[in-house]
């Protein structure tokens, strides 16, 4: 899911960088003292998740966890993903510094968009599993779509690129959906306030 350096044109890179900077600014305001450690840990999980291969399909794909991060952190996922991408570029040579902004927009933007409509449904114990699965699934699907859009500017055929990227990520979408579902289900039991669920919900369940 990391676009490599030297593929995209200057204006796309610049646009991505500006959007990423704005998102990071918003995100940094939203992270309060309480969420700091959660943010850092999820950021670290994202950093490592890219090493976990999903050995299905034709390409080379790995876990993203962007849906989970956006569900748990909201806008706070933007700086978290930014930091993780910087460290991945340094330690693993994934992506790179010029494409950093675009990669942040693709991954964090897709996570935010993919999970925004499901965030409010986490409070409902019945629909929680489905909502979490969909958030994980959609976030990866949207990231694949965003990536195809970014690649269009390199005069490649959009439909062909989109299909290649989309098909390669289908297994990841399912795996991500499942992981997001399990993590959210687990947190709802053990640590509901991480999900933004307050005491009223716990009382309701009791």
């Amino acid at each position, binding site marked *: 899911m990391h676009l490599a350096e030297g593929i995209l044109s200057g204006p796309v890179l610049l646009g991505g960088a500006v959007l990423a900077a704005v998102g990071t600014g918003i995100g940094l305001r939203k992270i309060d003292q309480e969420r*700091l450690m959660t943010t850092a840990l999820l950021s*670290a*999980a994202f950093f490592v998740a890219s090493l*976990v291969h999903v050995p299905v399909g034709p*390409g080379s794909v790995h876990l993203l966890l962007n849906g989970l991060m956006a569900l748990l952190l909201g806008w706070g996922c933007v700086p978290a993903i930014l930091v993780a991408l910087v460290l991945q570029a340094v*330690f693993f040579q994934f992506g790179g510094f010029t494409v950093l902004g675009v990669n942040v927009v693709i991954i964090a933007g897709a996570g935010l968009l993919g999970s925004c409509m499901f965030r409010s449904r986490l409070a409902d114990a019945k629909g929680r599993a489905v909502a979490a699965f969909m958030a994980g699934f959609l976030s990866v699907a949207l990231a694949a779509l965003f990536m195809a859009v970014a690649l269009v500017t390199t005069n490649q055929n959009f439909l062909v690129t989109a299909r290649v990227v989309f098909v390669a990520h289908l297994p990841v979408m399912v795996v991500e959906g499942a992981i997001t579902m399990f993590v959210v289900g687990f947190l709802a039991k*053990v640590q509901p306030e*991480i999900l933004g669920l307050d005491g009223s919900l716990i009382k309701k369940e009791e």
Partner: protein
Amino acid sequence: MRNDVATILLLTVVVWLLAHAQPVQAHKVHIFAYADGEQIRTESRFSGDRPARNCEVTVQAPADQEIMVAGSTDAQGLFAFAKPKQGGDLDIIVSCGDGHRGSWRLEAADYLDDRPEAHEHLHQESRQPASPSAAIDEARLRGIVADEVEKKLAPLRRDLARLAERKTTPQDIVGGIGYFLGLAGLAAYFRYRKGR
């Protein structure tokens, strides 16, 4: 509070397991190239040793953007092309159309014929009638030996090229995780000071 500690511990364990559950594989496409006789061979692979099939390979000089050779990898991720006539460093780039791209710099010294004296002898051979038999023998012998050595060197060159690829190590992973904790600590410190 106990719940917080439990969560942090749990997440740490999850991260730790993720890091160790699989052999460390980087996610990108690698290409490397080496000279083999009159050809330059390239191998392209995704992380985890999956061959990069049907990926576009282009060769160009580092200075200009003109593409000297273009082709695509086969089912094993291999692509070979004839050595270019004029010397100079080559940038060999593999691009898979889905955002994966890798490059390899093959320096002129690594593929140019490194036995000019053999050729010199071969050329001189026609011009110098003096002691022809000895000259021919020596020149041919040099040529034959050089070719044989070249054959033996090709796999070695391939292995060297493979080794030159930077692999992700557990140190990278643990070091990276350390950065996250450090950054979180830093942020917590500054917020604490601001709040006070």
